[in-house]
């Protein structure tokens, strides 16, 4: 596999960092553009003028705007996001606690998406235009159109309410009868994760399937697939080793769009299942107008996505040798 040249990695890092700075500026402008709401939300009418002044001072709202901007940019990059008025806790603490949970849930659905999707997409692309291709593709689109929270309710109704196999919420059993051992804890968490991951995977897999199916359609007509067949390679060998391997390249870059789509899904699902993750945090924060928390969670999610994008770029070099990074021929 080609190794990536340091030069290209440096370029990608620079661009990613630039993107994060731009997002922070956008965030800063967005929050500040709200007329007065930033303060009204945090000060109740019965507060004394001194208390209001203290809060303004603490959030540095009296300083000139550019000064606030510089402080904001520096603080955020150091990770101190300030203090949450509604949760009465340092925001960094909240995020440190909830980020891993969201990553587990999000990771599970993402994996399901990039395994099932391309697999089905490969077969549909290979059977091109046949009856099987039409029916599975149409039903795939139908599943893609189901609202995630609605299907989640139906699953809860079936598996929890009627059959009672799987828990319908939270991350661990609230009042366990059994002692907590590492195995029983992980088993319990897995059981709690099962329903959210299944209910979202029903929708998530279609995204990558669509990309894979279109690229497979083009690759199947290529000359190197024809030569592979002429070489006497078995049909499975041609489909997987020659066709799918090439069709995977755009799927890898397409997966990035999938990342954002699945992150949104987890925001909804965390609410349906009362799963104590970042999604849950941001929704409650917005509804209670707790802007510092919203701002912080939004920033951390953006960094997560930019990081995933970097991973995709690196994966790209291993998938497609034509990308000669850095060195000009």
């Amino acid at each position, binding site marked *: 596999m080609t190794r990536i040249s340091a030069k290209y990695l440096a370029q990608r890092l620079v661009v990613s960092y630039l993107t994060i700075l731009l997002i922070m500026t956008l965030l800063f402008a967005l929050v500040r553009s709200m007329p007065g709401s930033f303060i009204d939300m945090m000060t109740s009418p019965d507060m004394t003028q001194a208390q209001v002044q203290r809060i303004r001072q603490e959030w540095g709202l009296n300083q000139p705007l550019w000064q606030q901007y510089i402080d904001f940019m520096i603080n955020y990059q150091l990770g101190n996001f300030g203090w949450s008025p509604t949760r009465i806790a340092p925001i960094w603490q909240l995020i440190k606690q909830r980020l891993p949970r969201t990553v587990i849930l999000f990771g599970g659905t993402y994996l399901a998406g990039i395994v099932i999707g391309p697999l089905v997409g490969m077969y549909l692309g290979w059977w091109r235009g046949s009856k099987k291709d039409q029916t599975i593709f*149409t039903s795939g689109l139908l599943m893609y159109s189901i609202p995630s929270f609605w299907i989640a309710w139906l699953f809860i109704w079936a598996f929890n309410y009627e059959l009672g196999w799987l828990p319908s919420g939270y991350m661990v059993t609230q009042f366990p009868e059994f002692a907590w051992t590492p195995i029983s804890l992980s088993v319990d968490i897995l059981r709690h994760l099962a329903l959210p991951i299944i209910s979202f995977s029903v929708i998530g897999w279609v995204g990558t399937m669509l990309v894979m199916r279109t690229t497979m359609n083009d690759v199947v007509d290529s000359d190197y697939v024809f030569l592979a067949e002429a070489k006497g390679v078995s049909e499975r060998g041609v489909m997987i080793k020659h066709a799918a391997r090439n069709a995977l390249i755009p799927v890898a870059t397409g997966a990035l769009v999938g990342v954002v789509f699945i992150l949104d899904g987890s925001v909804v699902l965390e609410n349906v299942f009362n799963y104590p993750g970042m999604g849950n945090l941001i929704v409650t924060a917005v509804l209670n107008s707790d802007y510092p928390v919203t701002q912080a969670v939004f920033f951390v999610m953006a960094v997560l996505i930019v990081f995933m994008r970097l991973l995709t770029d690196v994966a790209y070099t291993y998938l497609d040798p034509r990308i000669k990074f850095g060195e000009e021929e």
Partner: protein
Amino acid sequence: MATEESEFTWFDAVKDRWSHRYERFQRGWGRFTNHRMGTVGLLILVFFSLWALFPEVFAPHSPQWKAYLGPTGEGRMTLEQVESLPHPPAFGDPFFAPLGTTDGGTGVMTLMVYGAKTALYIGFAAGALSSLVGVPLGLISGFYGDTWIDETIQRIADVVYSLPFLPLVIVLVAVRGITTTNIILAIVLRSWINNCIIIRGETLSLKEHAYVDSAKVAGASDTRIVFRHILPHVLPLSFVYLAQDAAFAILTQASLAYLGLADFTAYSWGLMLQNIQARGYIFDAFWWLIPPGLAITLVAAAFYFIGFSMEDVANPQRTQE
């Protein structure tokens, strides 16, 4: 004599100019309809559009109708009448409610019919708006490639693709007020860049064609080249993405409604689901839970169906042979 004869040529000229465009449309329509999926999608859309345009005709009652209290909805219900709500589908004995009622006594069928307008409105508006913004920008940045316009669009795309979409929409809607237009604007903020990038790619490849060079050699201005030679090829493709953005917008509106950010002033299926959840009847009133979810799925699927079968009609290579 001359005028009569010249009139004939004028009519003949117009017929001659438009006849082949009509016949070409027929051929395109033929290709579109032989995709069963496309036709099914179209039928669903037509069905729900009728609901959206003439709700009074299709809804069994007016929205004010209440169970037991008749069309105006005044008066009070007896205790056990209130107990019986949300009432399962009834065909005449206490009242006529094909899909049963909500816990407040309103007919579910009526709410469904009046909810269609919001879904379609959001779908078409978001799709059209993101195309209106995305296509011209894509054309320009594609045609005048590798100049500063192109670089900026590339950077904007980097940023927009790295924004967590739903949190962004939630913040925007919460900040600027929960109205349908705000929801559409928030959705379009994200989806226009999709159109722009795709149209840009298509324009970059189309402008290499020899017939564009030939127009340049004949002295055609840039605008003429873009609108006469490139746009006709790119337009069908933008319809494909218009349909997909519409579906995405409807699903996003439903998620927002679920999260409590639905526009309470308008009837919408998302709002119905939000109500059922708020009042805790999810597992008790299936006739109230299933229809709205199903309707959202069908409309979104209809847009996707049309979008993907349009793709076959739209892209020139495939229809060449």
